[in-house]
């Protein structure tokens, strides 16, 4: 009984901290409809700031708290709202996810840059450490009491703010229609900034309260966000009382699992379970709760990247393979490994092109699927084509199994479900004895195909290049065919597809399976390249980085995927070469994603525009200056050839032209 009571106390404490974080999340979401995945990361950074002020610089605790909670955190919140996320509330979900994931990555970058990992462990002492309270056999720390009391105050305060004051009413109104609010005379911007200031401050508060217990670490505190989501989801991201209930329930559940796990037979195999409770909870809530109906008319100026013809892509593919073969013949093995890694990541990016670029579903678990592929390849131990095919098929089946329960989910909820899945794989499956156990590396053998051995590093990289080209061709073929049209139609309007009688369910499962299969191939190839491979390659954080880089280089084209894959390989290399700037590089990538994330075509989009720009702007100038040169400027009517160059499906363009015509007609009257 005493044990039960003390587990309950611990559970209530954790739940209270979750509740504080979750209510901040609800506040920002219900005011600006920006779902801040970086909520936990913000709390993490401010826990570090608090440590820095109170421990390293020795400021009094109260002063540090005031500085962090009432000055820095609110200002950061306003900065995020004003500078990083304006207009995101009405943007497609993919865009707002990319931007907030970028903030998360940037926050981790800032933390690792300013407070690099070192041997001297940092710790925040509990409040009033040592003054224990004895309550009928149960020992309660002041920290626990303080947290529970504060969470009650926060809940009450937010309720009064949102339900009883005019500015709170305006907060709830602005989520429906911020433009209308300003027609009413309300300051929509001020209201949103206020909500973000409070929300960020609450994230910081939760981080500071939890840090003494779970430790001052980059990733653990960042994952606080999953718990906060799980709680907030119970309240459908809007109801504060339900959020509170969810947070408390989650805290208690986690505490009981930790406490009673050893009584269950076979508990030694479930060592990762306690850490997974929030993710499981989130997954369950997402799958079980009724979902919001489809949102209609979400298409907003998505300009498709050009899709090359099969002939043209074949030429490029052959060129790429030849290039790799020529390069690989004269390279040192370490360089070859890098090239191979870049190719594997490019293939992984292609899985994102299919799922996110064409399908419009954001997945935060790419590396989890790659990990499954690697594990399958190592465990099957068939170093030939069969092994690779098995890796693809089994990963595809896993992808389908994940897709089936989340069939009803769209956008944000789906992305969250994949994040939860990624974390589950990370902590439950990869650490289990069926996979890597505790970071035990697995051994993979390089395959031989049709009696041809790819054992040597250079040969193997050649094989990978061929695989990359094959996958790219398959992706292009899908995009150009009937399936591709269905994909784009589904991305643009699910409701419209429904009215056309398109059965999207199995199509979606197939899409997930296909994308997972590609990711599985990438993982298997990576395992073969590295020969020994450990679970640290497949941590969920890498999936977030991958999404960032996909956003920077563009997720709608093969070119973007290949360049992005190379970049993904280079980032850790650069970080180990220049360890002093390791954190800063994350920040740079994140800033790039924030800037470029609004256009899913990324940097590649601008690259594709260069030839058109040369033809449109440079040629006429040159032709003027040197009349002898035979340069033809791009003609206005779009020929078949031009169709492939990036002629954006630009409504503005067409409208403008027709507009000119009408005004001419009017003038001629």
């Amino acid at each position, binding site marked *: 009984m005493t044990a039960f009571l003390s587990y309950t106390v611990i559970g209530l404490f954790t739940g209270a901290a979750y509740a504080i974080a979750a209510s901040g999340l609800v506040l920002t979401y219900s005011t600006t409809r920006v779902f801040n995945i970086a909520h936990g990361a913000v709390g993490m950074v401010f826990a570090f700031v608090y440590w820095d002020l109170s421990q390293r610089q020795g400021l009094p605790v109260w002063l540090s708290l005031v500085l962090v909670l009432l000055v820095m955190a609110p200002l950061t919140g306003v900065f995020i709202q004003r500078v990083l996320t304006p207009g995101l509330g009405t943007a497609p979900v993919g865009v707002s996810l990319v931007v907030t994931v970028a903030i998360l990555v940037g926050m981790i970058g800032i933390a690792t840059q300013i407070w690099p990992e070192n041997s001297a462990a940092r710790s925040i002492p509990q409040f009033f450490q040592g003054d224990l309270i004895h309550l009928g056999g149960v020992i309660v720390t002041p920290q626990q009491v303080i947290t529970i009391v504060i969470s009650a105050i926060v809940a009450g305060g937010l309720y009064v703010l949102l339900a009883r004051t*005019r500015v709170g*009413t*305006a907060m*709830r*109104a602005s*989520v*429906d*229609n911020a*433009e*209308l*609010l*300003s*027609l*009413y*005379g*309300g*300051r*929509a911007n001020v209201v949103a900034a206020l909500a973000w200031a409070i929300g960020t401050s609450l994230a910081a508060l939760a981080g500071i309260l939890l840090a003494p217990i779970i430790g001052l670490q980059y990733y653990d505190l960042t994952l606080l966000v999953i718990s906060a989501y799980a709680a907030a989801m119970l309240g459908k991201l809007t109801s504060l009382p339900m959020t509170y209930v969810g947070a408390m329930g989650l805290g208690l559940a986690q505490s009981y699992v930790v406490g009673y796990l050893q009584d269950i037979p076979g508990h030694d195999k479930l060592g990762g379970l306690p850490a997974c409770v929030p993710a499981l909870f989130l997954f369950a809530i997402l799958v079980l709760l009724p979902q919001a109906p489809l949102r209609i008319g979400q298409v907003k100026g998505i300009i498709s990247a050009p899709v090359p013809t099969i002939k043209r892509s074949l030429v490029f593919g052959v060129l790429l393979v030849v290039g790799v073969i020529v390069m690989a013949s004269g390279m040192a093995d370490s360089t070859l490994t890098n090239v191979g890694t870049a190719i594997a990541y490019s293939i992984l990016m292609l899985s994102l092109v299919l799922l996110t670029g064409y399908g419009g579903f954001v997945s935060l678990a790419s590396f989890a699927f790659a990990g499954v592929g690697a594990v399958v390849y190592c465990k099957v131990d068939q170093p030939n084509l069969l092994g690779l095919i098995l890796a693809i098929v089994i990963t595809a089946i896993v992808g389908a199994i994940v897709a089936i329960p989340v069939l009803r989910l769209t956008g944000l909820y789906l992305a969250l479900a994949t994040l939860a899945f990624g974390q589950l794989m990370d902590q439950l499956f990869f650490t289990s004895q069926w996979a890597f156990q505790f970071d035990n590396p697995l051994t993979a053998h390089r395959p031989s195909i049709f009696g041809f051995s790819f054992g040597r590093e250079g040969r193997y990289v050649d094989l990978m290049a061929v695989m990359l080209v094959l996958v790219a061709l398959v992706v292009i073929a899908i995009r150009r065919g009937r399936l591709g049209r269905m994909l784009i139609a589904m991305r643009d309007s699910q409701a419209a597809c429904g009215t056309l009688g398109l059965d999207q369910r199995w199509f979606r499962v197939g899409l997930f399976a296909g994308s997972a299969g590609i990711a599985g191939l990438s993982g298997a190839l990576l395992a073969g390249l590295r020969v020994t491979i450990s679970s640290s390659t497949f941590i969920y954080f890498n999936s977030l980085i991958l999404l960032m880089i996909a956003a920077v280089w563009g997720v709608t084209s093969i070119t973007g995927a290949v360049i992005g894959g190379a970049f993904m390989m280079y980032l850790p290399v650069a970080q180990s070469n220049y360890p002093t700037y390791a954190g800063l590089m994350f920040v740079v990538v994140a800033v790039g994603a924030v800037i470029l994330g609004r256009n899913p075509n990324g940097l590649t989009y601008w690259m594709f525009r260069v030839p058109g720009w040369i033809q449109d702007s440079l040629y006429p100038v040159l032709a003027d200056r040197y009349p002898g040169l035979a340069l033809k400027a791009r003609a206005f009517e779009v020929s078949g050839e031009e169709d492939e160059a990036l002629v954006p499906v630009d*409504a*503005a*363009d067409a*409208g*403008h032209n027709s*507009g000119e015509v*009408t*005004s001419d007609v*009017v003038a001629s*009257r």
Partner: protein
Amino acid sequence: MSVPILEVIDLHAAYGRIEVLRGVDLRVPKGAVVALLGPNGAGKSTLLKVISGQMEQTSGDIHLGGVHVTGAKPDDLARLGLTTIPEGRSVFPNLTIEENLLLMSYAGVPAERVFETAYSYFPRLHERRFQLAGTLSGGEQQMLAMARALTSDPALLLLDELSMGLAPLIVDELYETVARIAQSGVSILVVEQFARTALRVSDYAAVMTGGRVVATGEPDEIGSIMADVILGGAA
């Protein structure tokens, strides 16, 4: 002649590269009701968006009560006495009626007086004051939207397509309210596709097509040439 409450001079505005307004000239005299008519896509709603500050013009000038207001924010204009009721149901569906009314006090009238005026005009709103606005019928929602015009004591009222999606009987009721507001001396610019209803309550009328005002005059005059203007006979 006194300074008009609203004067629009050679106004141009565009969505991206699509030019929608191509030199609009329009005057609303103080205390008058002006009906702005025209077919779909003529730029009527865009004109209201630019006047209310939701959209920026590419060139041209807007004077409100003789003051040049280019670049003013919609919330500032709302606090200065410009009330805009945009197209569609301009209420917050997830707030109760009372909360909707509470927000109307941002325009400068104390909340108590907003409640009092709104409930005395529309007793039905008082009965349902704790009901979510989204659960009201279309006509009741538009009533709630009109309550803002009544309570915020505007200098100029912009009304966009009051009739949208409503039964003719309810539209007539709404325009009776408009007439009542007009009698209290408020200047009104009404945008409407259904010309006859709007012409009945207006003092002047203007017709827009293709991003320009192509005809202005007395309601009778405009009523008789409407068909020609819209179908392209005159211009």
